[in-house]
Each structure stands twice: as structure tokens, then as C-alpha cells.
């Protein structure tokens, strides 16, 4: 994983389709697990490339998905497992509301990008979290994602919602 102080992330894209629900991201049968590293062993396990993902995913990798990523049940395990396996960013065409919240609240950044379909599996992406600029190093292209809001950046910087709420002076 490479991360500069200016908020740049560089990683390999893992492609997933539309309407990936939280049961595919983290199957319900593992809900009783509470240890975060154990939970990470099952990230994306319910998807059609679950086995391949768990075997080969590296810290710094980036999940790139289609529409409505994280729909279905509100389980926070889904965000925790993805983060736990070392994924540093999720890019999708759109996110389900509660999953989006769970990611930000557990300090996993998410970006919405209209052109996700142009990204191919295994592409190397360099992402400026501050501006939303995504460089596709492999294809030599640049995309502009909706930048992360200032409010979300503050939560991410604090290490998640609860840390933010402990520290914030209103």
C-alpha cells in the first residue's frame, strides 16, 4: 500500500457488479463473529469471485463496483470485513445509504464514480481522496469522482464516527 500525506492512494482494482448486497459482502452465517480479523477472512465471500478475492487480495487494493453497492441488511460487518482485509477505498457507481454510512463511520473512504464501467479488473488506480481524481495508470485515463464531503473527511480523519464524536467541540 502506498499512501502519501496528501491523501493519495494507489492500488489494484477488484471489479464487482451491480446490486452487490451485504449478504454477498459478508454472509449472514458469520454474523456471530466479533473478532475483526476473523471477520476479514470472509470479506466478499458471498460474491461470485469470493474465493479468488480472499486468496489474492492485498493491502491497498481497491474495490470497484456498479450500482447500489451494499444494499440489503444494515450489518456493519460488511464494511468492517472489507477494511479488515486491507482494502483502502471502495469506488462504486452508487451506494446503498446505510452501507455508505457504515463505511464512513468505520473510517473506510468511499467514492461515487459514474464511469466505473471503464475500469477493468486488475487496473492500477491512483486516487486523490481530497479531490476525487482517479488516475487509471494501466489505461492512462483520468476520472473525476464526486469528491468526498468535508464532513466525511473529518470523520475519516478522526478514525470513524465515534472517535469524531468523542473529540469534536460543538
Amino acid at each position: 500500500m502506498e499512501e502519501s500525506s496528501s491523501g493519495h492512494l494507489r492500488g489494484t482494482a477488484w471489479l464487482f457488479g451491480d446490486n452487490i448486497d451485504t449478504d454477498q459482502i459478508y454472509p449472514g452465517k458469520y454474523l456471530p463473529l466479533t473478532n475483526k480479523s476473523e471477520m476479514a477472512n470472509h470479506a466478499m465471500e458471498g460474491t461470485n469471485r469470493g474465493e479468488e478475492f480472499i486468496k489474492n487480495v492485498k493491502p491497498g487494493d481497491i474495490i470497484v463496483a456498479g450500482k447500489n453497492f451494499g444494499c440489503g441488511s444494515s450489518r456493519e460487518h460488511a464494511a468492517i470485513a472489507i477494511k479488515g482485509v486491507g482494502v483502502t477505498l471502495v469506488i462504486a457507481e452508487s451506494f446503498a445509504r446505510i452501507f455508505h454510512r457504515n463505511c464512513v463511520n468505520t473510517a473506510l473512504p468511499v467514492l461515487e464514480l459514474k464511469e466505473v464501467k471503464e475500469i477493468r479488473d486488475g487496473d492500477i488506480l491512483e486516487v486523490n481522496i481530497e479531490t476525487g481524481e482517479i488516475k487509471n495508470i494501466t489505461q492512462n485515463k483520468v476520472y473525476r469522482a464526486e469528491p468526498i464531503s468535508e464532513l466525511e473527511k473529518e470523520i475519516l480523519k478522526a478514525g470513524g464516527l465515534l472517535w469524531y464524536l468523542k473529540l469534536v467541540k460543538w
Partner: protein
Amino acid sequence: MTIIEKIFSRITGKKVIPDNYIWADLDLVTMRDFGGPNVVEEYKDNFGDAPVFDKNKVAITFDLHIPPRDEKVARNQQILREFAKSHGIKLFDVNTGIGQHILLENGLVKPWSVVIGTDSHMNLLGAVGAAGFGMGTTDIAGALYRGKLWFKVPRTLKIIINGILKYPVTAKDVALYILKNLTTSGALNRAIEFYGDAIWMMNLAERITLTSMVTEMSGDIGFIEPDETIFDFLRAHSATDIEPIKADNNAEYERVYEFDITNLRPQIACPHSPDNVKNISEVAGKKIDQVFIGSCTNGRFEDLKVAARILEGKKVSNGVRLIIVPATMEIAQEAEKMGLYRIFLESGAVVVNPGCSLCTTGHSGILAPGEVMVSTSNRNFIGKLGKDAEVYLASPATAAASALRGRIASPADL
């Protein structure tokens, strides 16, 4: 401004526009027996014994596994009772009913309220002009501590329903018809406002049916501008300082949908998605094993009354189990007083104590492999109510008619 823009503008003290990110003060933070124990654990891990932000703005409801079915559930409920007692929080125990309905019956929600809870159908509170949001455990834990949460102001869709409801077409049929058109992702991250003659004529129960199913459209919240029907109910349930809310005439909507229900026939959502909606005639005659009348979508007194009219003096078909569950104890008492219980029991129905009941895995009444159920609830995802079982979603009228026939049947065919 639309209704949600008005609510968030008032709370933040500045004019918000869609896609803004804001911190909003909460009027009510709730949790229930499922999800609630995790919130308590996370709260204690992070904030120890710190008092909640305002004990008068917190409520705990027991909706799901009531009374508890096993030791694990009993322990979870005990955790919540202990937390409620130590923080002086209101708790509605196993003898009350479904959370959102309990909040409404206890004057805790009114127009302009911003309410969160560990329930994906909190948004049905839009039926009274309140902004209800389902949230994850971290959100609720943080909200309990600070009384504020972050929101992205949703864009608003306007849905106009032309024509009027004519029995046997009900609010549920309209909700399913809209779902068929919008699909389960059609309102993703959007608020909806419902307008039209059919809407103004709806009672609270019907408005709740419609707004609750905004969840199945992936919407954040569905609003119906509250009127005297709603104010009367809220006043009768000890809400005070009720203030009307309506969108501005020049409010900007992302998109406007118009539907004409003049020729609408009863609708049914087939397995395994709430938007797999057909005219009942397309599936009529399919043999069924069980019928469920209840849930936050269709468990109010008016829903039970429709079913009772159809069931009165008749028997549930041999081999079919009819399970009826009022949403709350107040509704159950009203149903008992009005003679509905006698009708249900004489028809051969099983009447269960108020709660969410057969909306969720792990409740008694779960189906065996291959069995078929007609349900008045809001979801029919695969495996949710039994492995390889099939669930059809329909109105209380269709559910009752089907229970009598032993097959999927339109109330019009009785």
C-alpha cells in the same frame, strides 16, 4: 423547498440543498430488541458510563422476538432493560408492539421530528410528516452520546397518484404498483413525496402502508403532507405543539412520476423480490400453506378490519394456517372491543400477540422447505422466512380472501 429540505434547513438554521452534508440534532433516538444490544455494547466500549445526551429523547422498543424465544434473546432484552434503567430511558416491553407504531401512539413523533432507529422501516414515520431513518449500530451509539448525526440531504422525487382507491384495491396495491414501476432501486438515496386525491383520502393506516414500502424502493424516506386526519390521531395520542409541514409550491423535484389507479386491479409481489409485481389474475389459483396478516406495513386496526369483513362467518381453508398479528397492544384492544378477535378465532386463525412477527427470521411461524405464504408484510427475499419457501406480498384483503380459498385469490372473486 421540499419537505426534507425544510426539516433539515430548520434544524441546521441555514438553507440546505440536496447533496449537502449536514450535522442534524435529533428529536428521538430509538433502538429495538434486535440491534439494540449491539448498540449498548458499542456505547459502553466507547463512552463507558457517560449519560445519554437527553434521556427524554431516547426510547427502546421490543418489537421482534416477543416474548423471547430462547435464552440468547432473553439475555439481549435483559441488557436493554438494564441500560434503560441505569440511564432513565423509556422502554416499551414485550406487551406493547412494533416500535414506530408505539412511538406514534405515545406522542413521541410529530411533523418536523427527526427520528432514528435500528429498523429499516423507520421511514414510515413520513406518514405523519416526520423524518424517520434506519441506522446502523455505530450511528445509534454515537447519536445516544451526542444527540446529533450526519446526513446527506436527499434529492426528492414527487409521485402523484391520480384516481381514487376503490375496494378491493387498497393502499398496499398502490404501493406494489409503484414498486413495479420504480423497481427496488428506483428511489435509491432519494426522498419521495406522495400527492393526489387517492393520497388525501387515505387514513393513517393506509398512509403508513405506502410510506413504509419506500424502503423497498431503496428510498430514504417517503412523506405525505400531514392533514387533519393525522393531526387528530396525534392529538388523541398526547402529542402537543403540532405544527403542520408542507413543501413549497415552487419546490424543486428531481423527477415527477404520475400514476393513474382508476383501472388498477389488486396487485401481488411474487417471489423473491418486492418489485416482481403482477396482477393477481396472473397467479390466482396457486396453492398456499400459510397466510400472515400484520407487520409495520399492514398491522393497524383498519387493516385487521378489512380482513375481518372477509373472514366473518367463514372458515379458513383446510390445511392453511392463517396467522394474524396486530401491530400494537392498543390496536389489539380495539380489535377485541370491536369483536374482531371473535371473528378471527371462529374462522380458525391463530392470533398472535402484537409485534413484528413473521416479517423476520427467527419468529414462530417460519415456513418449511417448499411452502408458500401470502403475507401482508413488505419483503419477500429468498430464504428470509424459511429455506426454499415462497412468499407473496399482498393486501390484507387479498391475504384474507386467499386464506379462505386455500389458493391465491383476489378479494373481488369471493
